[in-house]
Every structure is written in C-alpha cells, then in structure tokens.
C-alpha cells in the first residue's frame, strides 16, 4: 500500500510541470494595459497603437525567454546542521552554483521543498556571476519530530521585469531526521533518595573506565587524568561506567487507542519531548540512559554520542497499540521513569517496578499559542 503510494507520488512528481509561470501584480497591470492597447488598436486602426501593442507583446515574450535563461544551469546544494530539534529554529546553508559559461543569473530566489511544499523562508541572490557559487542560509523550524523528506528546491525568478514569477523545481532528494524537542529539565529525585539511602549526586569513582571528558565543576579531583590534561592543555577527567544507582531507564508509553483524536496525538508528542528531555538531563549529569518503548528500545549507555542514539530512536518512535509490548528489560536497580501521554495511571503492560511516572497532557483550549504543555509528575512508591 505505502510502496504503491510512493510510486504514485513519484510518478505524479514526474508529471508535474518543471517550470511554472505566475503573474505578479505588476504583470497583471501590464497584461491589462496590453489588452487595452490591443482593443484600442483594433478599434481605431491606428498603426502606432499596433506598434505599441507589438512592443508590449514582445516585452512579454522576451521576459519569458530571459527568465528561462536566468534559471537555467543553476545547481543547489544544502548543508544541514548536525542536529535539528522540533520546535527549535535551525539554520540551513544553501549554495547555488551558476554553471552557465557566460550569463549571470540575476534575482534568484531559492526555497527548500519539504514534504512537497516550500518552507516559510527563502534565500535571495541578487546576482550570481557565471561559473561561481554563492551561499545563503535560511532559518526554519520543524514543528514535528521524525524523518522529513527534502524533495529539492524551488528556484524562482522575477527577472527581468518583475512581470512574471517563473519557478523551476530542482530535484535534490534528501532526508532530515528531526529530533524531538529537548527542554531543560530536572530528572526526578534518584531512587536511592526515596529508599532512604544517601548517595552523592556526583559521579562516583568506582566501576569500569568509560571515557575521558573535560573537567566540570564538582568533579572529583582524584579522577583527573593528568597525562591527557598535559596533552590537551585542559583539565580532563576519567569517567567510569556508572554503578547501579547511576543508571536510568526512560520508558515511554507510545500506545494510543485507534480512535485517538488530535489532542491525544499531541499528548504523545509531548510525552516524547519529555522523554527526550529526561534522557538528555540524565546523560548530562553522567547517567547511563536506556530507553524502552513499545516496539523500540535503546540499551543503556552514557556520553554525548549516546544522546544522538536515544534522540534518533525517539524521533522515529511510531504510535503503537496496547497489544505491542515494551521492548527490552527494565533494570530495576537503577532509576526509571515512565512517561505516559495521558492520565489514567500506569500504562497497561508497562514493566513493573518503574520508579516514577510522568503524565504528559496538552491543554487544547484556544488560543493555540497558549497551548502550554503540562507535565505532571506523580511519584509512585
């Protein structure tokens, strides 16, 4: 079904005209004047009016030919930033090559086509001399996480007279994985707290060596790795594989009923955002973080590279049903947080022994700009 749909959409894209022409406001006036002169010429038989008419028509034709020449031979490349989060603006760099040998391209606008439509900001190039490349960048914000399809670019020009907008679509298929939004967040109090044990919140010195990282205020001075500090010129400390209490599992219940409405969908998105924020917060303070969801899991690990893995999994997390079980084994010795998209207690089928439950809900009352996500933390004994 989906395969056939994608073939169909590709076919449709093939059939779509490569070039489009649209009148601008000035163009509409121009056309109106041309029509009026034409009418007057036919009516009066005044040859000078025919001369004007011929000129006006010729300007229209020349305008079409010139904008065509201006748009021809342009190549566009993009360079995406390393990480793009939903709801956060990012800057995409575009480079336009004018591969024509002699002619400059004037007045070029380039728009990125995402999921078949242009993004809200375009890049403008006044003049691209032949054989050169010019760069510009646009800011854009994806509202939703996930894999976004970059179809290519729409190159447009109103050159030479601003009467018509001619646009040409350049295919440059690509994909952009948009991670869920990550907000600054404090993870729930560690399990040890709740159990009455006292532990330090700092990374311990025990366990197996994990990695070297830069010194942060509060680190144990005994963990400084002097040899690499001398080499790098900055204080480096050893990180250790965390012990049981330094491990956290973020669980997210991505089950939604089949007849879920938009609000429920939004709540799931909010839950994913919270899960991502939690994972980032845990990783930031040195925890090893595992992710568990229905039909998806990321084994526990620590370090910045692991954040990318967790975010990637969350970005692609699909909605499931209650029938799909959580994947992976819950590490009951470490901290664990379950994020559920809506109220109603622990999600059915969630592994037992979860430390804390966070409910994510989204207020849907108008106006939408004020739709503030509300996360309620409920501690479970």
């Amino acid at each position, binding site marked *: 079904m989906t395969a056939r749909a994608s073939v169909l959409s590709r076919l449709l894209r093939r059939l779509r005209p490569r070039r*489009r022409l*649209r*009148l601008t406001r*000035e163009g*509409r*006036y121009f056309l109106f*004047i041309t029509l009026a002169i034409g009418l*007057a*010429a*036919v*009516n*009066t*038989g*005044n*040859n*000078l*009016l*025919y*001369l*004007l*008419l*011929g*000129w006006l*028509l*010729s*300007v229209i*034709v*020349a305008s079409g030919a*010139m904008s065509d020449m201006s748009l021809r031979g342009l190549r566009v490349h993009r360079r995406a930033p390393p990480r793009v989060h939903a709801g956060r603006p990012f800057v995409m760099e575009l480079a336009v090559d004018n591969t024509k040998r002699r002619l400059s391209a*004037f*007045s070029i*606008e380039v728009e990125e086509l*995402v*999921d078949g*439509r*242009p*993004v*809200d*900001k*375009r890049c*403008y190039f*006044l*003049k691209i001399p032949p054989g050169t490349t010019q760069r510009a960048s646009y*800011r854009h*914000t*994806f*509202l*939703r996480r*996930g894999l976004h399809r970059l179809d290519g670019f729409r190159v447009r020009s*109103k*050159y*030479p*007279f*601003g009467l018509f907008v001619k646009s040409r679509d350049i295919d440059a298929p690509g994909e952009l994985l948009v991670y869920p939004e990550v907000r600054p967040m404090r993870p729930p109090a560690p399990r040890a707290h709740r159990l009455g044990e006292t532990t330090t919140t700092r990374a311990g010195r025990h366990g197996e060596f994990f990695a070297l990282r830069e010194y942060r205020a509060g680190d144990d001075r005994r963990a400084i790795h002097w040899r690499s500090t001398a080499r790098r010129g900055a204080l480096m400390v050893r990180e250790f594989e965390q012990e049981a209490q330094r491990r956290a599992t973020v669980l997210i219940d991505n089950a939604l009923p089949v007849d879920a409405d*938009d609000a429920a*969908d939004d709540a799931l998105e909010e839950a994913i955002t919270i899960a991502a924020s939690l994972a980032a917060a845990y990783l930031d303070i040195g925890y090893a973080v595992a992710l568990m969801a229905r039909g998806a899991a990321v084994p526990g690990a620590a370090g910045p590279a692991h954040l990318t893995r967790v975010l990637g999994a969350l970005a692609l997390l699909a909605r499931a049903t209650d029938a799909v079980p959580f994947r992976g084994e819950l590490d009951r010795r470490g901290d664990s947080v379950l994020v559920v998209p809506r109220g109603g207690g622990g999600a059915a089928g969630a592994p037992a022994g979860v430390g804390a439950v966070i409910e994510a809900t989204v207020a849907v009352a*108008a*106006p*939408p*700009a004020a739709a503030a996500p509300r996360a309620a933390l409920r501690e479970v004994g």
Partner: protein
Amino acid sequence: VRFGFALKASSYLVVASALLTLVLSGELGPVQVALGVVAAIASWFRDRPPANLARWVRAWTILSVVVFAYSVVAFLAGTDILIVGAHFLVYLLVAKLFNRRECKDYQQIFILTFLMLVASTVLNASLSYGALFLVYGVAGTWAMILLHLRRELEDNLPARAGAVAAPGAPRPEIQRVLDSRRIVGPRFLLGTSAISLVVFVGATVMFLAIPRIGFGLFFNKRRDGIALAGFSDRVELGGHGLIKDDPTVVMRVKIPSARRAAEQPLHWRGVAFDGYRGGRWFRGARAPRTELSLDYGGGRTRVHLRYAWFGELEAPERAARLERGLRQEIYLEPMGNDVLFGASLPTVFEFDTPNPRERAGANDELRHPHGAGVRYVVYSDPDSPPAASLRAARGDLPPGYEVYLDVPEEITERVRALARDVTRGAATPYDRAVAIEDHLRSTYAYTLRMEDPGGREPIDAFLFERRQGHCEYFSSAMAIMLRAVGVPSRNVNGFLGGEWNEYGDYVAVRSGDAHSWVEAFFPGVGWVTFDPTPPGATDRLGRGAGLLDKLGRFADTMRLKWFQWVIEYDLHRQLSVFKALRDTFGGGGGTSMRDRMAAGKAWLARNRAAAGGAAAAAAALLGAIGWWRRRRGGGVGAAGRAAARSAVDAIYLAVQSRLARRGYPRVASVTPREHAAALRRAGAPGAEPYADLTELYYRASYGGTSDSADLLARARTLRDAVLAALREAPRRRASR
C-alpha cells in the same frame, strides 16, 4: 556606473523620450511645453523631498487642484479633450518626478510616460515618434530591469536592526547597494541593449503580423491637417511681399522610372476654377460637375472620372485607358483640405478602402476627406494629344461648358485687344492657345516679389504695367485671354515637377512646388494643359548634389518609409508581405486568401455594431468568470491560490492580503511568524489574533496535521477577529 545613478538616468531618458513625442507633435501649448520641460529638468536635481514634508505635500496638493481646475476650464472653453489630457499628463509627470522616492513612484512614472506615448499616437504621427519610440524602448528596458532589481532588493534584503534611515531616504543597506558600482557595468548595459534590440525585432514582427481587421467602432482617425503656404484651394491675385520657398514635402509619388527619364515635369493637378471676378478665381454655382462611376474588387475601390466629352465608356475601353495610363502611387500629407492630386489629366483613382468617401467637385476635381494623410493610386493621361488632332478638333461644347467662355466685364478692352492681336493669324483654337502661351512666356518676366496693383484690374496691371509676376498672373492672364478669343479655359492649381529621390525611387513634391496653369478645352478631344509661365522660373527639378541635399533626401525617404510601413500599413500591405514571404519560402496557391480577408473586412465594416457587441459580450463574460473565480477563492490573490493547500492556508493568506491592503504587507524576506511578531510590536490592529492565526497556519502547513474541523473553526474565528479589529482601526496610509 552606480546602480542608483543608472536607474535615475535611464528613467529620465524614458521621461525625455516620452515628453518629446508630445512636444514634437506641436499640438501642445508653447507655455505649457516650456513649463513642463523646465520643471522636468529641474526635478533631476531634487532627489529627496525637503525636510518639511508636510508643507511640501500640501504645496503639491494645492498645485494639483489648481492645475486640475485649469484643465476643466480649458476643456469647457473648447480645447480639445486630448490636448487638455496631454497637458494634464505633463503636469502629473512633473509632480511625480519631484516626488520620486520609492519603487512605486518610478512605476507610476513609467505608466505616465506610457500614457504620453499612447496620446502621441494620435497627436504625433511623424517620423520623430518612431525615433523617440526607439529611444523609449531601449531606455525603458534598462529602467525596467534596474527598477525590478531595486524592488527585489527592498523586498529581500533583511532589515538590519538598529540601522536608521534619514526621512525620505532608502534604508542604509539598500543605499549601500544603490551606491554600488559592481552591479551595472558595461557588460550589463550591453546585455540589456541586446535585449531591447531583440524586443524591437519581436515588436516589428508582431507589428507586421497582427491582423489589421480594425473596424473603427468608437473612434475615427483624427489628425488635423496643417494649412500649407504653397498650395491653396483658391487663387487671389494681388497681395504684397515675397513668396518664400517652402521645402516641406507635401506629396510623394512613385512613378515608373521610364517616365522620370522623360525629364518632362509633370503637372500635379489639384483644383480648377471656372469663374473670375475682382482678381479672384472661384468655382461658380453653374460649374459642370464630373460624374463618377465606382467599381469594387479585391477590397479596393476604383473611381472612374466620367469626363463629359467621353460619354459613357464601356468596360473594355475603361480597362484600356487604365492600361495606357501613367500609374502613380501617391502618399499625400495632411494639407488641411480634401483635395486629391494626380498628373494631368487623371482618369482613375484607386483606394484601398471598400467604403468610398470620395466626392466629385466642380471642374473635374476629386475630393476625399482625410485627416491623416492618404495613400492612393492614380492613372492619368499626362501627354497632350497630337497637335494634328487638336487642330482638327471641332464640335459642340458639352452642356454647361459655356461658363468656361465667360469673360467678366471688368476685363479691360486692351486685354481683350491684346488677345486678339496675339492670335491674329492663328486658324484653329489650338493655334490660338499656343500663340497666347508663347507670347506670355516670351514677353513677361517671372518674379516671386508681389506688388499690390492697388485699385487696378490685376490682369491688366500685369500685362501692361508691371510686366512681371508669379505663376498665378501668367495662368490667369492666359485663361482670360483664351476666353476672349473663344477658347473654353479654366485656371488650375496644383504642383509642378518635384525632386527625384534616388534612395526611395520617388518624386518628392514640396510645398514650394505649388503652381498655377491653364487647361483649354477642345471639343471631341478634351482638356489640354498649357503652362504660360516662363520655363526657367519653374524649373525646380534640379537636384542638389551636396551632402546636405543628399541627407535631406535620405531623411525624406525615411519619412516616406515610416508613412508607408507604419502609419499606412494595412491589410493589403500585410497580405502582400505574407504573399512575398510565402513566395520566398515556397508553397503556392491560395490566391483567394486576399479576397476572403477583404470580404471579411467588408463584412465587419457592414456589421460593425454586431461585431462590437459580440466582442463586448465576450469581454464581459470573461470579466464575470474572473470575478466569480476570485469570489470563490475568498479574496485570495493569485499567489495565494497557487500556494493554498488547505482551508487554513487560504484563510491565513486572505487575512494577510487584507493586512497588506491596510498598510501592513509582509515582504518576502520576513517569515509569517516574524511578520506577526513585528505587527504585535508595532501595535497594529488585530495583531494578537493574527499571531494566533499565524501559529495555526504553521501547524496546518508544516505541522503535518491535516485540517480538522476544529482547527478550521478556530482559524475562522481568528480571521473574523482580525478583520473586525481592522474595520474599527483608523486607516493608515499604505507604505513600505
């Protein structure tokens, strides 16, 4: 060249060429022209309005009201609406030139200049229009491209925070580009010139190709003729002063080159008079009128002059006369009268119009009302019949021809006696005519200096006292003397000879070639031309070989080409062009095409009202469809329609265009969200609901959610909130 300067200079070139087309028409008032030109030049030095903007604007408002009132008064006083309109256009242009700041002002300047060009199509049909149009085209292409680039800059260069522009000046970052020399270089000018050349070639092709099926629904051609000094529709002897030679070309005649080789100057006959009274020639009420017979075919009309002595000619005889006759293709400039000229004596006139407006005048004149110059073909019999047949001529005068024998009483006895003396010994009327012609030619002197004869009879004074005069004296004297000896005669006015133009292969007849001569009637043979003016005086065929003469002839050729190929270009010429093309590029047959087109044109001419009504109905239908589609689109412009994917999109775009109309447009470099934020900062009416609507738009467009009924309902509520706020807020002048 600095970008800003290039834009200004090319715009002024556009202005200058458009203004000159009007000025050179010579139809505008000299005061208005002088004021307009001086003000336009002065505006060059005034790039920015003064600091006291309010006073400046008020001054212009008052001035505009005054000029408008003046225009209304001038119109009511009977000035032609076109002239009044042209004057007002000049004023508007000057006002705009003094207040040019933004791209919009430049656009309006272009529109005004174009309107001037349109007005000039009626007021100025001379070659100067063509030359200035060429300049307009080239400069216009530059200016339009530069203006477009400037506009794009204003739209797309993001505003830099903290940069403040002087009042009335562009933003600093725009000013930087305007001052840049890197954009407009020689290559740019060369490239755009090439473009305008291509545009011109295209315009020429279109001009030649657009079918000429004009049917004059509402207007007719209107161009006032200029009364020319040389040729006159009347003859009045007397007067005082020196007749000046006027080199203006009034008529161009294409004749077979064999005829040119004959070197015999042709008499281009225009008007003739039968009555003479008090030193003045006139057309009497009893003057015989020529009958015309018309025949149509191939979209042209042939007018056969049925001279009384011919009687009714059969068709073969008509064709034979046509065959024998000298064919002349004549391009007549507007002369302030409707006289048609042709080499003596014309037999057939041919017009390319199916609807004849020709009128036969008295004394075998032909008149054809035309205000804009006319092209026609004449067939004439320029050579006098052999002397033997003239000597043998006898018979009765046709009815009504007695008027040509009328000698008024005021003619003195010694004039009559002189006529008898001169013709003593001449046996036939023809010999008498030759004798009088010889006598006048050999005895009297030609002069361009006129002297008032006072109370004396002018012919008497010429023959016996002054013994010199210009051609009208000679012809008047001969005509009267002929009548005194019983030969029917009349005085004829027209042109003599002309100058051969080697570039265009035609005879250019100038105003100064105006001439007067005599026609004598011989029963059974017809009218024969006699020219009693001494030949040396009238020999104006000599052509100068100097560079200036050559240049003058070349310029005149250009003028003729302009008239032939632009002003008078019509369906027939168009068909001949197509036919020539078809012959060049092969293919054959289809000769009936010309007839079919002509038939179609004739049908249109006959059913003007029906055709006009159908065209108007079609236009109204198109308009209605457009309006309906626009309505259905919820007021979204074409841009919105193309981009709108969902109902929320459409609502958002509609609100955005409404905001733009109220002076809060979103330029391309600003995203919808930034726009909403800016409106909120500016405290624009409806900014709050607009911001919310913008968020909805983002959700619908980029959020991946489909429009739910709920989303749509919210979007509608927000739209209504924005529109309500806009309705309540006071209007703000749209500006950028």
